[in-house]
């Protein structure tokens, strides 16, 4: 079997399973977030936190809850890291440096999981389990909760209420993430991933050198790392490490876990707005863009011209021979398309056009299918912008699912799609303008520029993967990327919730032959086209000086 055939089988089998699984999972999430029934365990949590689970929140209340919860999370995680040396299971590591601790706290709370540290030599088991892994669950749950509130804004009529954040958060963790993560962890253990609380072993290698091997609760963290589109590895090598991702088929499972929830949420959306075809249309836009990206990335990696790639038939540098080039490329596409940021190969080593595709995946705004929850609301806002431009061409005030897109709605949607590109461009511009940040580049010329551009794109879009090459453990990058992550996460959330609040208040316009149908291939093509053109126009100059300057011959 040739590499191409194997690659196609790998992707094809993933697609088949996703097509089969997204229906029951989407329906399960629909039930979860519309049910009136509380579990006993959930009631207990509500009592401890002190919230009334049956009281709904308006958008501003919902947003305040999200922000309050996140601020508390950042402070708790920061404290835990700083105090590590005095706590249990520290493996002898001391407190984490302030700027790394701040960067890491922001990074995990924003679902970015950018890692300015090396896991196995910085974090003890306690911080990994009760700090980082907990944030892996709750930051993903925050994304799902906000997506559900946004969908309620589209589905509801004449109300200001978008649901209860605490209920959405708790249910997302208990009813969605925990059960699937548990199954995923068992599957990974079966595949050879480790799960223990062992102290580091020191072994002597074949060449006689000494090597310290850290064990730990890896499989459990790995499962939620992928499922929650988090991406923060237990080890520095992330999913390229054999304890995290031992074999080709655990690699397959990890990609499946990454794509599972983001591709199922459109089904939930369709059920919640009472028209499954709308969900199909949204998932079709995501799938179109994703397939395009996977194909391009595989092509760039397998068929790149250049002396070395041609002589070994593919761009093998920076990839694990366990997985091969194609499965690494597919993993890279999945992880950059979903704001996960886990890596099983090094994007810095990719061909310049392959690297450009991973960059583009993030620049699209993490919507194809995007992070858990954030992908759905990001895509729905793009659909709203598309409806606004194209909808005018049918001669009516544009409306999506019967909700009119007036000045207030377009203002919020415009700000939403402005925020992330602005952070990326301004951040990259500042970094490139100063001697210090420029000194962190491993490479010179366009490739070095790509490294910086990648870092800000990854942080602002809450992806968290690194192009490698760039030395980011400096105060400038810790602070700048920390800010990029925080603004890139919470400004869009607040804008999305405000938009949902204004949509929920409307009385929907009934559909007629004169309204723009938003469930046909025509609309799918339009949203994909608008997304690509907006991204291309925004980032063309930066891409031209980075990967394109390097890659076009």
């Amino acid at each position, binding site marked *: 079997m040739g590499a191409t055939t194997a690659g196609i089988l790998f992707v094809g089998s993933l697609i088949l399973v996703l097509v089969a699984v997204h229906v029951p999972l989407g329906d399960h999430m629909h039930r979860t977030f519309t049910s009136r029934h509380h579990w006993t365990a959930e009631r207990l949590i509500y009592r401890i936190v002190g919230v009334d689970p049956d009281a709904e929140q308006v958008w501003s209340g919902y947003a305040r809850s999200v922000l309050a919860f996140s601020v508390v999370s950042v402070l708790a995680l920061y404290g835990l890291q700083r105090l590590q040396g005095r706590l249990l299971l520290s493996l002898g590591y001391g407190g984490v440096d302030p700027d790394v601790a701040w960067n890491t706290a922001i990074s995990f709370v924003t679902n970015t999981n950018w890692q300015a540290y090396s896991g196995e030599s910085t974090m003890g088991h306690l911080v990994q389990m009760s700090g980082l892994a907990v944030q892996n669950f709750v930051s993903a749950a925050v994304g799902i909760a906000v997506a559900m509130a946004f969908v309620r804004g589209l589905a509801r009529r004449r109300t200001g209420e978008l649901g209860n954040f605490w209920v959405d958060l708790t249910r997302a963790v208990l009813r969605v993430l925990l059960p699937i993560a548990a199954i995923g962890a068992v599957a990974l253990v079966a595949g050879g991933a480790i799960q223990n609380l062992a102290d580091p072993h020191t072994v002597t290698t074949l060449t006689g050198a000494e090597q310290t091997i850290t064990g730990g609760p890896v499989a459990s963290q790995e499962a939620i790392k992928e499922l929650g589109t988090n991406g923060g590895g237990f080890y520095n090598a992330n999913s390229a490490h054999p304890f995290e991702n031992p074999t080709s088929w655990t690699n397959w499972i990890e990609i499946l876990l990454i794509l599972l929830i983001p591709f199922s949420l459109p089904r939930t959306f369709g059920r919640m707005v009472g028209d499954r075809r709308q969900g199909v249309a949204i998932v079709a836009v995501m799938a179109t863009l994703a397939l395009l990206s996977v194909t391009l990335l595989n092509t760039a990696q397998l068929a790149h011209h250049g002396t070395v790639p041609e002589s070994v038939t593919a761009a093998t540098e920076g990839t694990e021979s366990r997985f091969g080039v194609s499965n690494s490329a597919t993993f890279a596409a999945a992880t950059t398309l979903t704001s996960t940021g886990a890596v099983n190969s090094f994007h810095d080593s990719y061909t310049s056009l392959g690297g450009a595709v991973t960059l583009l995946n993030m620049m699209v705004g993490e919507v194809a299918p995007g992070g858990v929850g954030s992908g759905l609301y990001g895509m729905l806002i793009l659909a709203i912008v598309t409806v606004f431009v194209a909808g005018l061409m049918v*001669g009516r005030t544009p409306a999506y699912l019967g909700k009119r897109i007036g000045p207030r709605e377009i203002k919020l949607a*415009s700000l939403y799609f402005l925020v992330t590109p602005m952070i990326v461009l301004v951040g990259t511009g500042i970094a490139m303008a100063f001697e210090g940040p420029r000194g962190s580049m491993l490479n010179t010329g366009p490739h070095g520029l790509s490294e910086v551009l990648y870092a800000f794109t990854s942080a602002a879009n809450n992806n968290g993967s690194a192009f490698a090459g760039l030395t980011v453990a400096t105060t400038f990058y810790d602070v700048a990327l920390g800010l990029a992550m925080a603004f890139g996460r919470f400004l869009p959330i607040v804008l999305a919730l405000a938009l949902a609040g204004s949509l929920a208040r409307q009385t929907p316009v009934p559909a007629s032959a004169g309204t723009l149908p938003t469930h046909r291939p025509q609309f799918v093509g339009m949203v994909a086209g608008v997304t690509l053109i907006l991204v291309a126009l925004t980032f063309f100059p930066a891409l031209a000086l980075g990967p394109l300057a390097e890659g076009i011959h």
Partner: protein
Amino acid sequence: MLTSTLPASAPAALRKLDPRFMWRNPVMFVVEIGAAWTTVMAVLDPSAFAVLITTWLWLTVIFANLAEAVAEGRGKAQADTLRRTRKATTARRLTDAGEETVAAAELRRGDLVVVEAGQVIPGDGDVIEGIASVDESAITGESAPVIRESGGDRSAVTGGTRVLSDRIVVRITQRPGESFMDRMIALVEGASRRKTPNEIALTILLAALTIIFLVAIASMQPLAIYSVANSPGVEGGFALGSHGVTGLVLVSLVVCLIPTTIGALLSAIGIAGMDRLVQRNVLAMSGRAVEAAGDVDTLLLDKTGTITLGDRRASEFIPVGGTTGAELADAAQLSSLADETPEGRSIVVHAKEAYGLRERHAGALTHAAWVPFTAQTRMSGVDVDGRRLRKGASGAVTDWVRGQGGEVPSALADVVDRVSASGGTPLVVAAAENGDVRVLGVVHLKDAVKAGMRERFDRMRAMGIRTVMVTGDNRLTAKAIADEAGVDDFLAEARPEDKLSLVRAEQAGGRLVAMTGDGANDAPALAQADVGVAMNTGTSAAKEAGNMVDLDSDPTKLIEIVEIGKQLLITRGALTTFSIANDVAKYFAIIPALFVALFPGLDALNVMRLSSPQSAILSAVVFNALIIVALIPLALRGVRYRPSSASRLLNRNLLVYGVGGVVAPFAGIKIIDLVVQLVPGMQ
């Protein structure tokens, strides 16, 4: 037409360069700042390239202002004509003591004024006494005089129109300075024009795009400086130095990328939309109403006068008993000769057309005794040559027959019911001759549906608009006419207040409702409707309540108003799409030109094979300016609109303005480049 108004609008376009005016249009304001900046650069460091770029940037701003000035110019001409008719008039105000002469401007609401033949009505009001023929050509352009009388729905008069005959007393209903004519002048002139909600929303989106491009270009500068520094020994070319991209080129790039095409034409599109209504003699009180017209989901149409011709006509003679059709037609015609109502005349005409009966004249039958119609007898007829003919409402005529000792055949009731059920009005004809009294038959009077209504309603349906007919008729009659006309629904036995509740019910379901009205009792529903078109012949109350006035008083015009509203929105969407799609080609023109010296590989992106970097950038700027001028006629005329489903409309417009928008500039920039490269200093 355009070629004649363009030069005339040039001074206005230059006046609009005032930044205090420009900032209201964020996209073009950015262009103006850019143009000012390049002017400074061109003065400090003159070159052919700098001068040409600066010139074309200023032209871009001026072309945008020109589009608006041309659109406004058409209204201004009309306003001037109106203003000439609104000369200072005096009014004869009635006081307790008698009459006094005051200036028209001093009139207050509720004042009573007398107007006689030859005088100009001093203000808007209602006739409370008298009847007069009035020349309203000043506002409607229609030279035939109209009748205005006290009471009823034809009582409203407009200030500035002239009484041709008789004397009327008018109660003034306007406040000083707020006459219909004043508002009309302000509207056509665009003085009171406010941005509509959709226009505001679009402006926000365009501003957001402008910000994105500004940031994208601004952040490119440090990247460019870094790239130059990292390529030692390589000449950056004319656009690049160690300080990055030159200011001239940066400004050119920004101007080419921000959505100038739609930004330049946006306000012209709005003004032209209002203007298209004015040309059809409809005055919209706000742009918001025009926009709402495009969104209408439900049209409420009065049956009488809108869907039907409004007068009943004989369509059939149905004999009963042993009578023949010809016999019935003859009797019906004879009994109607002196009947001057439209119904009566239609019986005479139909008898002639259907049975070839020669038209007789009432005057020729000198010995005939005419029995006129009265409200008590509810029938009319003639006594001639010993024969007595009667024609009238079924009950009245059968009573007459029985009173004369005649028999009423049982078949008559069936025929009468059938005619009623089909929406018609049955008139029974009976004759008495030599003691023989019998019912001859029934004349079927029908309110004829106007020609072409079914097609228009089918078109509405294709556009997703539901039509509802409102009538005072009973259900059976209403249903018959509704079926014949092809409306989607009807409201029978409607009282005036039912209209209002129907409007409210439709709106509660999220639908936008449009309706026409003229009577005072239509006013609440007109005010409630999203688009309320008042007839100019109607009452002041209706004109106050509606948000549009149709000077021709043609209720079917509502359909055209909806189409104009849609066309307005489509034009905006199409030009926005076109504008954004254009950017793709401009990037392909400028980015390779900028950086090809540093990274020769980027020449692969120079797909248009433009002759030199200077020429490429200048060509993109020139194209960007010329496309505005090229699209002015489209902005003023509106994108062609044919009623069809949303999907099909979208496919067509996407193809023309989306795909066309991507392709057109590639060709346009290439052609301009072929010319520009000949200019000295462009190589």
